């Protein structure tokens, strides 16, 4: 039996509500972390997973307190330890890699100092030795030119680099246990894959135990030996990683796995109804009862215990797990999307370019934009009525920028945006008439920010109805109720404020507001990325349903390639503001032809331990598009030579109607990928 590093025993953490009730964030958690293993803790937001990870360092956030139980490390309870003793364990024995390294590095201190601080605290090295060690650490996390990086401030690094610095800082104290709180969540797909690969390497290299906290089953699948699934502050399933991902015997995990869109499957995944109960919700039985497909009468009033199954080496909290044991292979069924594609073109972008460069005074006076290397260039896309076209790419690829220009929020430098084949849309909002504004609506990424917190749901949805159609009193109300029903929210939501809604409900309100204008085109900017996986599937299904009902056209921006695969008819791949590939999603995903598409798809993490990401290109961050030649020349692994650096590649069209912009001849592109 391997040595146990950290023992969590009957841990409950919570807070006192204003009424003085005790509200639990963690309920009676017990688990052991063994030496050298990587444990993944997975759950949706609010499941208590981060609170658990922090408790493993003896840290309880302001406002929360320990109700009972202990976190035992080296046979002493961290939660009862004095701060002075904790300081000797934190960073030295147990280290944390935070979710958002950009926020977690102190802004006024140089990178080198922040690592040095950890070394000073947790090692006996002298100054020169420490300096050498800093370079070593930065090298280990594969940062280029460590000496210069050490002299920089956190904000001068990219997101991926910041995350690597955080890893280096955690490794400085050579800890026995590393806690990782969503370490890759804010990163691009390619960067994420690289950071995970680095973490795997470090785990093997140093033999450190790791606790990896994430909502992303794809990332968890790549790193963990064992998985703990949390729901509503409880462990609902715990066992070997492979078994949990391949044969989940708890209905929640089963449903969760089914609701994740996969690259290999076109069509929308099935959604789980409802959402996780808020902390403090009263229920007598199982916390998952409302959403469970396998529930029975007894689940309503009795709460199941976590039961250890010897033969499966798994613990499960469910009365009915047996019905899943025999047949729990996740057979994902998808709702095939119906294309309501018509021949009519509804929106066309020709030669659109957009610049963020600061304008010189003369240009400002003459009201023109001059920039020979704009952020976005040569965008030609024709969008058919009823189509869902997705723009994909890493951050900085210009996908949101294009969306803003279509909406009229950002002036273009050049090019024409045409609606309905004959109507020119000015890229300046002020020059668009009310009808131009009505036909294009936006749904934003984060409903917390896009819904006015001081307006009720009724007022939010009423606004476009009043503005565009001048509706009043009864008719207005009827329309609002109608729209709420369309997004599957009841009439009683009208008087609620956004803060009284869950994330999924808020996004539904945002969808209802967009549809209230009866638009022809809806621009969706990362609409599901702020949502939990189980809720994401529901919102995607809703969007698809509404599209079929109204014949709306969607322009869908997302960094999540699996989501895009699920919902879109056509995909446009962007790099550095230039199109790389445009084609029917079926073809783009099956024969990834452009080298950049290949990189992107290779880096996608699937919730399956057998599918490893393929890391084709380095995850360098390019600040500006190259002046000449192909936009992807800097990272391309299949670069041909000078021609890629000097000439903009031509469009090549495959038999299936897929356009690829690359110098490599089509035949070779396809041949290489089939191998």
């Amino acid at each position, binding site marked *: 039996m391997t040595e146990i590093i950290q023992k969590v025993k009957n841990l409950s953490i919570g807070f006192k509500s204003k009424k003085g009730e005790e509200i639990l964030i963690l309920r009676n958690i017990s688990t052991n972390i063994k030496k050298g293993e990587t444990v993944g803790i997975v759950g949706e937001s609010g499941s208590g997973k981060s609170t658990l990870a*922090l408790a493993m*360092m003896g*840290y309880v956030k*302001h406002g929360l307190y320990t109700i009972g139980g202990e976190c035992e490390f080296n046979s002493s309870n961290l939660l009862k330890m004095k*701060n*002075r003793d*904790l*300081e*000797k*364990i*934190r*960073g*030295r024995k147990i*280290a*944390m890699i*935070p*979710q*958002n390294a950009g*926020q*977690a*590095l*102190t*802004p*006024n*201190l140089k990178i080198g100092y922040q690592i040095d*601080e*950890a070394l000073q*605290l*947790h090692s006996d090295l002298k100054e020169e030795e420490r300096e050498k060690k800093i370079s070593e650490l930065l090298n280990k996390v594969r940062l280029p030119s460590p000496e210069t990086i050490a002299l920089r*401030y956190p*904000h*001068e690094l990219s997101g991926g680099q910041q995350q690597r610095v*955080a890893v280096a*800082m955690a490794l400085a*104290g050579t800890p026995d246990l590393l806690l990782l709180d969503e370490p890759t969540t804010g990163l691009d797909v390619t960067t994420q894959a690289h950071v995970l690969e680095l973490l795997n390497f470090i785990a093997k290299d140093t033999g450190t135990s790791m606790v990896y906290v994430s909502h992303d089953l794809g990332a968890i699948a790549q790193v963990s030996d064992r998985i703990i699934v949390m729901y509503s502050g409880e462990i609902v399933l715990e066992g070997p990683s492979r078994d949990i991902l391949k044969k989940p015997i708890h209905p929640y995990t089963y449903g969760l796995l089914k609701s994740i869109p996969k690259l290999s499957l076109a069509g929308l995944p099935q959604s789980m109804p409802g959402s996780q109960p808020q902390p403090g919700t009263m229920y007598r039985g199982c916390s998952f009862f409302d959403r469970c497909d396998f529930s029975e009468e007894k689940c309503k009033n009795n709460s199941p215990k976590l039961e250890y199954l010897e033969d499966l080496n798994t613990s499960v909290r469910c009365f009915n797990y047996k019905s899943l044991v025999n047949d729990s292979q996740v057979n994902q069924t998808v709702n095939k999307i119906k294309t309501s594609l018509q021949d009519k073109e509804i929106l066309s972008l020709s030669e659109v370019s957009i610049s963020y460069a*600061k304008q010189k005074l003369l240009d400002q006076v003459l009201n023109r934009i001059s920039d020979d290397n704009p952020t976005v260039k040569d965008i030609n896309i024709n969008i058919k009525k009823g189509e869902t076209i997705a723009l994909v790419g890493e951050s900085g690829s210009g996908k949101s920028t294009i969306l803003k220009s279509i909406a009229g929020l950002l002036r273009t430098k050049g090019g024409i945006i045409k609606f309905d084949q004959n109507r020119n849309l000015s890229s300046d909002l002020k020059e668009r008439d009310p009808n131009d504004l009505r036909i294009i609506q936006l749904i934003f990424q984060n409903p917390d920010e896009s819904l006015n917190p001081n307006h009720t749901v009724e007022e939010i949805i009423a606004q476009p109805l009043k503005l565009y159609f001048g509706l009043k009193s009864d008719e207005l109300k009827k329309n609002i109720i109608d729209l709420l029903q369309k997004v599957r929210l009841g009439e009683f939501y009208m008087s609620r404020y956004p803060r009284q809604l869950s994330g999924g409900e808020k996004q539904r309100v945002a969808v209802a507001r967009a549809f209230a204008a009866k638009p022809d085109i809806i621009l969706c900017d990362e609409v599901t990325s702020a949502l939990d996986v189980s809720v994401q599937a529901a919102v995607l299904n809703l969007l698809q349903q509404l599209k079929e009902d109204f014949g709306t056209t969607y322009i869908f921006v997302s960094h999540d390639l699996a989501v895009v695969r699920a919902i879109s008819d056509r995909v446009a791949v962007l790099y550095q503001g230039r199109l790389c590939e445009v084609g029917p999603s079926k073809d783009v995903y099956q024969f990834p032809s452009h080298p950049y598409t290949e990189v992107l798809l290779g880096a996608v993490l699937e919730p399956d331990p057998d599918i490893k990401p393929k890391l084709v290109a380095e995850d360098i961050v390019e600040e500006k598009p190259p002046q000449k030649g192909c936009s992807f020349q800097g990272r391309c692994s299949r670069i041909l030579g000078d021609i890629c650096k000097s000439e903009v590649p031509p469009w090549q069209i495959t038999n299936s109607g897929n356009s690829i912009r690359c110098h490599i001849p089509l035949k070779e592109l396809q041949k290489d990928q089939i191998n």
Partner: protein
Amino acid sequence: MLFLIIKRILLGLITLFIVSLITFVGTEILPGDACTTYLERQAFGEQLEACYRRLGLNVPAYERYVSWAANAIQGDFGYSLSGEMPIKEVLGPRIKNSLVLASAAIFIGIPIALILGIVTALWRDKLPDVAISTVTIFAMTIPEFISATLLILIIAIWLEWLPGIVIVPTDVSFLELLPNIILPVIAIAMIMTAHMARMVRSSVIQVMASEYVQMAILKGVPYWKMVFKHVLPNALLPAINVVALTIAWLLGGVVVTEVVFNYPGLGRLVIESISNRDLPTVQALAIILASIYVSINLLADLMTLMLNPRLKTLQIRK
């Protein structure tokens, strides 16, 4: 960086120009003028004409503005009407007195405010915070004329420790002035310290709740090292601008306090010259107070820029 400084200075100058225009136009459109006030009932015929000629009020307004502005730039604001002496000489000692009062309040108030703010934030919701916060909120809400009057009543009249009002010539030496300023300084420092302490408190609390402070704790950084290295530099940056505004407010004359204590500073001069219709002095004061505000805010902005690595590199990159 240099470009930015020049740009900010230019903007400040434009602000001053606009202020001077507004005060000039304002004094122009008021009914009556310096001569009618000065001559009172004799303000007609020959005498009025003579007065206009003597004061140069018989030329068109824009010409007067130009010549006034040209002189003002060189520090010559013309003659005060009531005392018939150069405004420069009237202002000199007043500015000195206000400076003495302001700097005393600043040197006492700011350190206390910082310490109180930091202590309340670090012991948030515990006894020190509750006690100090109650007192500061109290000090903040009592208007200064009441606290000043109370101070006079208790310390000057009942206890007879210090003079209650300042009865000294305007141009006394610093040492003679010193006992007289103690009460006014306390009255001003109370309200100023309370405001700033609240500001510092919320700023420190905000930084204490940040992810990087949590990270520092989880890295095992000892508490006080964390406070001084990770918290305070980031929490006190936004305080610079508030401190600047407070200093400007102090220098600009704390009108009410000066009146209550009969203190010969700029603030009282403002009141006096307005009630005397001493328009040239009012103009001069407006320009001087505006320049104090503009230059202190400019200094504060530049300091923030220097101390914040984030802004510094941003500017250089541009």
